[in-house]
């Protein structure tokens, strides 16, 4: 076998599920060898996995059912019964947390359920007493009331829900209470970038320092990276398209957006080495480059280009993305084996 001859090279090649499937597809290993390899690389723990699946989906469905039930606003149930049943649910969840403890997923999910029931309670309270409060106040109080529990929970999904509630508060507050002038209307993207970017930075810091290992789940990085990149990209694109109409908030948002892109690139290329995050940043960079080139070529005639311009833009698109693909393939090779 040539294994000894190539052992140094093979040591650097990570054994992945895809590699095993390739070997099987090309007839290099038998079906039995494929199953053995896959079990070696990613052993199945059906009992534990199914138990967690049932618990997570079961609680999600019951909570959704409760939300649907109170949204129905059944007149036959008295306001006292409605409010006390939700309070009973919150207390029940908290008792469950004490019984199971926050070291176990069941305890963490019960604390998350209690956090969601707090929001349901406030919505039902507003429904019964017609307080006339703006919806941003509901999300603000919901975010404030549940922050302590989220901090204690040591649970990534709990933080994701809390961040969603806080983002909702920010957007609704901007629309309903802040009532920005035209000069300031794009500041919402800066605020959202700061909120989600700080959460991402904190996540990376705590994971690298191995302080909070439970945060290391990959999806937390994916969600935060995409959200932050979108909020950074929008002001930049608006500035490119309409530079003559750019307000102070658009310019500030664009500066923060571009600086954020550069910082994110540096972190995921050199410090934490993650190809998925890097490719998302590169994609965002390609979109910015596309808009710059289109704008430079067409000026104010952006929507009324002639045929030659369309052809040139098509070729430019291929050029920009080809460069990105080549760069990512080269970088991917040098980063093989890193899965932070």
């Amino acid at each position: 076998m040539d294994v000894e001859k190539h052992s140094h090279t093979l040591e650097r090649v990570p054994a992945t599920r895809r590699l095993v499937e390739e070997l099987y597809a090309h007839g290099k290993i038998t079906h039995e060898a494929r199953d053995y390899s896959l079990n070696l690389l990613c052993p199945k723990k059906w009992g534990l996995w199914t138990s967690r699946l049932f618990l997570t989906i079961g609680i999600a469905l019951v909570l959704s059912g409760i939300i649907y039930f109170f949204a129905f606003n059944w007149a036959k149930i008295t306001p006292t019964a409605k409010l006390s049943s939700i309070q009973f649910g919150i207390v029940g969840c908290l008792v469950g947390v004490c019984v199971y403890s926050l070291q176990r997923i069941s305890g963490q999910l019960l604390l998350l359920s209690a956090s969601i029931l707090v929001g349901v309670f406030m919505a039902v309270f507003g429904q019964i007493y017609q307080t006339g409060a703006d919806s941003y106040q509901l999300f603000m109080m919901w975010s404030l009331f549940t922050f302590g529990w989220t901090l204690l929970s040591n649970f990534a999904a709990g933080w994701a829900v809390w961040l969603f509630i806080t983002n909702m508060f920010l957007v609704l507050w901007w629309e309903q209470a802040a009532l920005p002038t035209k000069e300031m209307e794009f500041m919402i993207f800066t605020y959202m970038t700061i909120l989600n970017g700080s959460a991402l930075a904190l996540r990376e810091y705590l994971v690298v320092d191995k302080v909070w290992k439970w945060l290391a789940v990959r999806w937390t990085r994916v969600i935060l990276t995409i959200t932050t990149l979108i909020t950074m990209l929008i002001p930049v694109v608006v500035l490119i398209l309409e530079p003559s109409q750019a307000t102070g908030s658009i310019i500030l948002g664009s500066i923060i957006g571009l600086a954020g892109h550069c910082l994110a690139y540096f972190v995921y290329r050199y410090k934490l080495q993650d190809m998925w995050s890097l490719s998302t940043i590169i994609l965002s960079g390609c979109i910015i480059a596309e808009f710059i080139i289109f704008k430079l070529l067409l000026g104010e005639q952006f929507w009324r280009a002639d045929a030659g311009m369309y052809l040139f833009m098509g070729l430019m698109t291929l050029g920009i993305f080809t460069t990105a693909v080549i760069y990512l393939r080269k970088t991917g090779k040098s980063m093989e084996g890193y899965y932070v």
Partner: protein
Amino acid sequence: MSKYMRKYSAATLIENLADKGLTTDKEIANFIIAQQQEPELSLYLKILLGVAAFIASLCFIGFLSIAGIISFSHKIELIIWGLIFVAGAIGLLRIAGDNNTMTHSFLVQSSFASMAVGKTLFVFGVSMMQNSVWGASLALLLITGATYPLYSVSIDRFLSSFATLFSILVNILWDSSISSSRELLANGLFFTFFVGSALLLTNDKVKRDYIPLSYAFVFSLCASVLFLASYTEFGYWKHKELIHPTFINIVLTVGGIALIGWAAGGLKKLKKESLLLASIGTVLLGLISAPGIILAIGLMVLGYAKRENLLITSGALLMPVFLFLYYYNLDISLMQKSGILIGSGIVLLVGRSYMKHKGWREGGASCVQK
């Protein structure tokens, strides 16, 4: 890499296989090294390729239209230009070869953009010729069937196959001329999607070339249940037609039991207590639950059995999207929907408690595929 995945090198894997007497192939090391020279594109590169082709194809269609090379009022001209672009795309891919150079990447992207332009023009031409909503489906079926074996870019295979299946679904749900047989056709199409997905995803002998098609079937299944979560009554004005979810629930329930049997290594193993109870749980879900919930759980289980993270993610994303659309479905009241959701949740939580009681959580009920 999944957090459940252990880190091994290719050298360690081969050593393990050799120790167990599972490989004697002397060329295995050379094969792995060759694979590293020409690896299949990662998913993130495929996404980048797709975005580039989409933007570039819009620019090229704009160029052809403004330059007067094509006219959207001449059907035959559109079809001919479409076929020329498709042929050009196949040629460009052949010329591109397999190396990892700038020219190769540029040619692959140009080829994919050319394919997108060609297929769009062809579909427009045939649709206009047919003068029917089914024209687009027919055109997509013809062009996808013709290019699938010839054009090996997996993202194109997936998108074309999905567009074909999706257009058939949309036509069946909204074509006013088939109102008398809509329910029958919709159920038949769902069954076809289900059988297609099951055959392609559970059969080890299916070639890798058909993976994009299998995902097109899975995504079409998801699209079907999401449409039915939004509406169960189709048609406009006073004429309403009901598509009852019973048949779909039956298909998903039977499929769920078959999936448990397949994951366990054979239907005979369903006699085992844990698997029998899982089957009963599936029947209970089928009786009280909604199609989107059963399909989402099924996709996650299938994904775990096949170790396909994309399937697990698809199932996990289907659930919240389904719940969101289901909330706004006006065919049943929020109270009924609440009952369905709470009932389904309780079935799962009871199942979980029973597993804990029997000690199956620690892997006692593990059922590795044989």
